[in-house]
């Protein structure tokens, strides 16, 4: 059911928030044992807010647009009084002492927080296999991964547990799982949504965004969580977006750029075929298709795996066992206490990236790696700016393949890293990008990505919305239970 339909039902008094919660948890209880998208639920808080919504409904008061809408939250955003584990042993019992700004805004909007969603540990990964607790399954095929790192966020929406969820995207962590699970996901412009209360992975790349069943639904959530926050110095001094209102306006004819690099041999033929048919669909609607070259993209993955681990190596230094989280109590010196705490608390991929980041920042290596990577990053940003002189958006596949099988890349982390080849350049340049379903291959969803100019979520989402008005890929649901 779409957000608009739920809103109508509330308006007509056909449902109550408490009843919506009952149904939501009933569906989760019967099917999440298989999907495993939630790490834990936040029932008490959800029912408390539902009570407030119902009380206001009973008094005939007008409600904010997202009042009474269930929401799933990736477990790297603080919800005061609930745990924030980041799917890591080191924070297994960490209780959030404050609300992340996005959570405070969702509470203000009277959304119903259903629970915290599984992810790759500290958002490091592309499959959710790196969760320290358990992997999440792709609702379309339980033998396949849901993508990552926001795997729980995408799977919970695909499985029909929640209409909307929050994810975070550092190199594709919203868009790639959205593509794998056949849902819509947006990484907003860097600085559009406050990062306060989001546990940092790579601070200059991280951005929170919505996942939902449609562009229209995601627009509601973006409008609710965006806007300046004085507690995040990198948050832009701009008001909240008004994308929902923009989507009601008629679509203009645009110039759509197609980077040749992202429609090349690295991309699966089936994925390519779906994206090409979407390109033709847009052409038929009167948009102009322009082929372009983005030469710096080839260096983006390598650059990302210098910058992101470098920032992560510092961001994760605070988990030392001194003040909170896991602590090795048997150690008899400070050094062994810190070493053992981190040795036991972090998983293999997190350790790999901390070591990588520490290495590239070390004296003697900084110039060769980190400084060079920053230069390439500037080059990527510049190339996007050049491209956007000629086109309004860029359209690419979101990921080179459909969802892969569990363990497919277990022996080869580099192959897994290449799964983010189309999404990583976008984070490097801080641009907004949307992933939405554009077809199916062997019963698995295929996603395409629309990248826009900085702060131009309107155009990106407008174009995605137009596609969803004319196609039905986003309405298809996997065969678990019967999805409304």
């Amino acid at each position, binding site marked *: 059911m779409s957000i608009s339909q739920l809103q109508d039902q509330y308006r007509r008094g056909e449902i109550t928030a408490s009843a919506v919660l009952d149904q939501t948890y009933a569906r989760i209880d019967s099917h999440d044992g298989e999907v495993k998208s939630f790490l834990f639920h936040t029932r008490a808080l959800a029912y408390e807010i539902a009570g407030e919504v119902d009380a206001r409904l009973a008094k005939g008061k007008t409600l904010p647009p997202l009042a009474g809408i269930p929401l799933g939250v990736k477990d790297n955003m603080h919800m005061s009084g609930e745990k924030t584990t980041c799917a890591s042993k080191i*924070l297994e019992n960490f209780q959030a002492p404050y609300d992340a700004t996005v959570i405070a805004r969702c509470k203000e909007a009277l959304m119903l927080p259903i629970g915290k969603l599984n992810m790759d540990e500290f958002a490091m990964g592309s499959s959710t296999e790196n969760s320290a607790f358990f992997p999440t399954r792709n609702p379309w095929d339980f033998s396949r991964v849901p993508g990552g790192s926001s795997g729980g966020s995408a799977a919970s929406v695909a499985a029909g547990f929640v209409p909307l969820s929050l994810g975070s995207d550092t190199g594709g962590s919203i868009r790639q799982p959205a593509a794998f699970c056949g849902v819509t996901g947006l990484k907003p412009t860097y600085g559009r949504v406050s990062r306060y209360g989001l546990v940092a992975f790579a601070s200059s790349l991280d951005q929170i965004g919505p996942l939902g069943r449609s562009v229209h639904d995601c627009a509601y959530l973006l409008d609710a969580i965006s806007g300046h926050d004085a507690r995040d110095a*990198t948050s832009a001094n701009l008001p909240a977006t008004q994308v929902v209102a923009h989507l009601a306006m008629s679509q203009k004819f645009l110039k759509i750029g197609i980077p040749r690099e992202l429609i090349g041999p690295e991309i699966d033929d089936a994925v390519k075929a779906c994206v090409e048919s979407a390109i033709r669909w847009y052409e038929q609607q009167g948009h102009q298709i322009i082929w372009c070259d983005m030469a710096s993209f080839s260096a983006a993955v390598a650059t990302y795996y210098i910058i992101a681990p470098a*920032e992560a190596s*510092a961001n994760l230094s605070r988990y030392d066992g001194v003040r909170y989280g896991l602590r090795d109590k048997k150690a008899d010196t*400070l050094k062994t206490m810190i070493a053992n705490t981190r040795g036991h608390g972090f998983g293999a991929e997190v350790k790999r990236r901390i070591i990588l980041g520490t290495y590239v920042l*070390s004296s003697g290596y900084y110039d060769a790696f980190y400084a060079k990577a920053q230069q390439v990053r500037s080059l990527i940003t510049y190339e996007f700016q050049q491209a956007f002189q000629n086109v309004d958006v860029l359209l690419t596949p979101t990921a080179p393949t459909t969802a892969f099988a569990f363990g497919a890349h277990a022996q080869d982390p580099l192959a897994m890293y290449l799964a983010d080849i189309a999404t990583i350049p976008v984070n490097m340049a801080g641009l907004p990008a949307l992933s939405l379903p554009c077809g199916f291959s062997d019963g698995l969803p295929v996603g395409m990505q629309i990248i826009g100019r900085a702060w131009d979520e309107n155009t990106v989402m407008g174009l995605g919305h137009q596609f969803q008005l004319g196609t039905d890929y986003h309405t298809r649901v996997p065969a678990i239970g019967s999805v409304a």
Partner: protein
Amino acid sequence: MNTVFETVIGIEVHAQLRTNTKLFCGCPNQFGTGPNSNVCPVCLGLPGALPVLNKQAVIFAVTAGLGLHCQIRETSVFSRKNYFYPDLPKGYQISQYDLPICEHGHLDITVEGVSKRIGITRIHMEEDAGKLVHQGAEAISGSTGSLVDLNRACTPLIEIVSEPDIRSAQEARVYVENLRRILMFLGVCDGNMEEGSLRADANVSIRPVGTEKFGTRTEIKNVNSFRSLERAIESEVARQTALILSGSTVIQETRHYDDFTQTTKSLRSKADAHDYRYFPEPDLFPLHVSSAWIAEIKASMKLHPDAVLLKYKTEGLSEFEIQVLLDDPEMACFFDACCVDGVSPTAVAKWVVGDFQAILRDKKISFSDSPVAPAALTSLVQMIEKGTLSGKMAKEMLPAMMTGKDPESIVKESGATQISDGDALRPLIAAIIDQHPDVIEKVKSGKRNAADFLIGQVMKETKGRAKPDLVRTLILEDIQNR
């Protein structure tokens, strides 16, 4: 062979800025409350918390830079300095590294009548760490446990790095004294060395006189007074000289000064120096300080000690008074607050530097904690100037004013104003003169000093409230007319 060595010293001063709140969060920038009471998610380094730069701290850093004749960088960058220690909640310190806010300044010192310019390499901003309280030992090793207090974490510091232009322990002392005075007069730091709001580390090396090449330096830490700075350098120079003369070499290391033994001991050598892996702090964009903002800061700056000196000279203060005031910025600040329109600065200076300072010192109260408001002292001086009080009466009122009462109400309560009304005194004076015809004769024969006896009598009768010079005039007038 008798090699004569020259000492080369560079000094790093950490000064805590007097902002209301910490450098990156809204917690109060103050201590003295219980452990971990001035803390929030940001300064505790909790996951998800983000730093937001305190604008006042930037203003203070620029102010210090301007006061030390530095160039202010239009764009400076905060970096992360990475290392693990329990008093460092994030596992990194946010500091400035390759692009500090101020560079290329200088400070002039005068030692034994000779003036000298000491270069300031840079001033950068950074956050302080917390404090460890070790149980049963002085360090983590040997203690039964250590407690972490993060009240001080994230408080704003500037680090002022000098060029290696200093050549003696005495010069080092004068440099830090002058620097402290400037920071205090500009209002950016309270200058308290014992409490650690101003900390100086000295980089010390020696080289044969006449050579260019610097010797291997050691860094001396834990110096918390001017005297210990001088002693630490002297003892380190003696140690290095003895090492070299005995054919040994100095190793580059950090040394800890022990005020009790007056010697330095090795803390850590260069071999175990950290690789801090500095990189630009991604949570903060580069800091831009426009020339318009610099001009605005300059316009609202408090007076530099050099300007204060000139002002005091023009106001007619004595050399001694000026010296005393410049050595105690708090006193100078109090003095300036007293000097309102319509009161003579020299009269105020006499009281501030004299009797008032004495009574505060006696009670071990600093000028900033003075229970007597500057306005109260000003009215006292004005009452003397108007003749309402004698100097002696004013001095006797100071203890009562220390309770916080203003002089007007003390006078009102006791009725103890000076009698300076001639008409009120004339009948009493006439009566006293009548009783002493012998004195009339003496005065009339030219012994005017004989009148002193009569003045004493009048003062006795009025319990000291009569204005003495008026009494003298009236007595002489009365006798003349007889």
